[in-house]
């Protein structure tokens, strides 16, 4: 592959207004104590994105350290199976094994630019925590990661990883002691340390500017993929697909394609045991608008607006909210979001492993599962040149214990 220079960040027709609203969604529902910090961050981010030196420095770090541009890989055996061309954007080969490194490197570089020397982050299964600890080590910053007590127990290896990287992990007991509570606790901590501490948020959700800023740091995925696809095949893909948890990998892929009207865009949500069972995390499918973690978006909530615990075999998708830009993209119809059950995702994980020798993260397996259905249909309509580009957001090493249990290995 030749290196595909990161296209200069272009706006799309689906961007937020200057106050962070994507149509009816987004905004900033935050304690006043954090507003100054969010304003400062907004300004610093916009200033940085307009500074070619910052953009160049971000790209250089992603390239030299994280291994971008990630490959666009034609999965030939899988393509043969489904009768359409399957392209995988290999974010699984990035340093630390997922797209998430892009976001943390961007935010940490911005933190450095803002003169702060400490970062905090929330984490669910530990992926964003490990990525944040990695970025902090790279930049020589102090790092504290908040993690639900339940997750600390379940994900001992990732806790060890963060410790090795020099980060402090704080176990959070409140609420359900999982990801959403870790976010709550990180926000609480941020309130009291906001003068010298940056909060590296792990997905394209939360209060303005996080949804737009995280997207900007993740959008290399789509910028690269679009250029690679054009370069390698001379055409844009017929469809693109990603899994949607908070939505960072998905929006990172979509952004470059939003105004390509001929490109169909799909997002695959964690359907858990099946949306009809209530045990799922398919927030957009549930389509229930509310405010969570600082933004108006779709939220899994009860009649009184209390957040409902989400369920997914995939820790990284197990979140009762979703980035507000996705809510907007769903409402406008630009992107089609569909739920994928645990069982469908695990079947796809197995299929990709056996067919291509690539064990995907269970998150990414949701995208594979959904996209293969799309590809079959497109292949039937358009023949084997129909092209579906899937973001392989991460590798499955972290998920082996889950897979062992699921497949009884």
């Amino acid at each position, binding site marked *: 592959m030749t290196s595909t220079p990161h296209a200069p960040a272009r706006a799309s027709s689906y961007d937020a207004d200057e*106050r962070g609203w994507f149509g009816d969604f987004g*905004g*900033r*529902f*935050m*304690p*006043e*104590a*954090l*507003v*100054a*910090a969010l304003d400062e961050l907004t300004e610093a981010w916009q200033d940085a994105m307009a500074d070619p030196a910052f953009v160049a420095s971000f790209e250089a770090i992603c390239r030299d350290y994280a291994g971008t541009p990630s490959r666009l890989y034609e999965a030939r055996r899988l393509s043969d199976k489904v009768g359409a061309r399957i392209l995988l954007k290999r974010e699984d080969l990035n340093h630390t094994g997922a797209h998430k490194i892009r976001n943390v490197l961007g935010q940490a570089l911005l933190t450095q630019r803002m003169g702060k020397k400490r970062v905090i982050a929330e984490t669910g299964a530990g992926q964003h925590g490990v990525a944040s600890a990695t970025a902090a080590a790279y930049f020589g910053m102090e790092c504290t990661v908040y993690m639900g007590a339940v997750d600390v127990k379940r994900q001992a290896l990732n806790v060890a990883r963060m410790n090795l990287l020099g980060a402090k992990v704080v176990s959070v007991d*409140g*609420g359900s002691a999982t990801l*959403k*509570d870790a976010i*709550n606790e990180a*926000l*609480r901590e941020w*309130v*009291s340390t*906001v*003068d010298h501490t940056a909060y590296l948020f792990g997905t394209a959700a939360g209060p303005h500017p996080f949804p737009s800023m995280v997207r900007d740091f993740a959008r290399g995925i789509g910028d690269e993929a679009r250029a690679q696809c054009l370069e390698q095949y001379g055409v844009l893909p017929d469809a693109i697909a990603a899994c949607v948890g908070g939505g960072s990998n998905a929006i990172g892929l979509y952004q470059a394609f939003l105004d390509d009207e001929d490109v169909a865009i799909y997002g695959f949500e964690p359907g858990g045991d099946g949306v009809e069972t209530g045990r799922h995390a398919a927030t957009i499918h549930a389509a229930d608008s*509310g*405010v*969570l*973690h*600082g933004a*108006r978006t779709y*939220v899994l*909530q009860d*009649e*009184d*607006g*209390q*957040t409902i615990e989400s369920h997914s075999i995939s820790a990284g998708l197990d979140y009762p909210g979703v980035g507000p830009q996705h809510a907007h993209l769903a409402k406008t119809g630009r992107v089609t979001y569909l739920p994928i059950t645990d069982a469908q995702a695990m079947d796809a994980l197995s299929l990709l492993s056996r067919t291509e020798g690539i064990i995907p993260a269970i998150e990414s397996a949701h995208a594979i599962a959904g996209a293969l259905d799309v590809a079959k249909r497109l292949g039937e309509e358009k023949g084997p040149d129909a092209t579906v580009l899937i973001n392989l957001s991460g590798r499955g090493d972290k998920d082996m214990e889950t897979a062992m249990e699921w497949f009884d290995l």
Partner: protein
Amino acid sequence: MSNTSATAFEKARADGRAALVGYLPAGYPDVDGGIDALRCLVDSGCDVIEIGLPYSDPVMDGPTIQAAAQHALEGGVRTRDVLRTVEAVAATGVPTLVMTYWNPVERYGVPRFAADLASAGGAGLITPDLTPDSAPEWIAAADEHDLDKVFLVAPSSTDARVAMTTAACRGFVYATAVMGVTGARTTTSDLAGPLVARTRQTTDLPVGVGLGVSNGDQAAEVASYADGVIVGSAFVRALLDQDDRAAGLRALAALTEDLAAGVRRA
């Protein structure tokens, strides 16, 4: 007659003292127990009451209030129970506000919530995660139902934001005296005084100072520069620390009296 909390602050100011604002979550230890506890605050000297609406994701609360709210939610408390609590407490005649994160209100329906709160006799809302610039719907509904809109200012707020915030407030202005979540603290903050001064430059509304006060001496100190002393976690702590309800109420009464004496000592 408008049931605004401002009247209580005016009365206290007329007495030459600060008002004591007491907070407890609804539904702790259960709905009726919570009503008893809140009435105990009224009986023991609180001038204004804040009733917390228990919420699953309370990002501004420290461990004490989190624990009580979680207990309440696990006990099944609903938004309508909060409104019933308001009704029972407001019946005492003391201005009674609801302190709530935004989503439960949005979910209930903003106009409907304003209407039901007003008809329960509630004075208004304190909104810790809703700033005026994100609150047009609430402002409209509050104005329609003649309710207090208490927004927060913080040490980190710019002068412009303080002005924007106080301009949107009705009833009083809530000044968060520390950069941090709710929770009793042994020392008060040196950020509070300057913040109150900055706030006063923008408004004639009374300014209540919250976060951290846990005894009469601290209350006296805060009362020396603020119009109201807001106490929450210390009250919850008093309840949490006691095994039986009667003892909890006794402790609550004793603490309230200590604090009420404090605001009169300044």
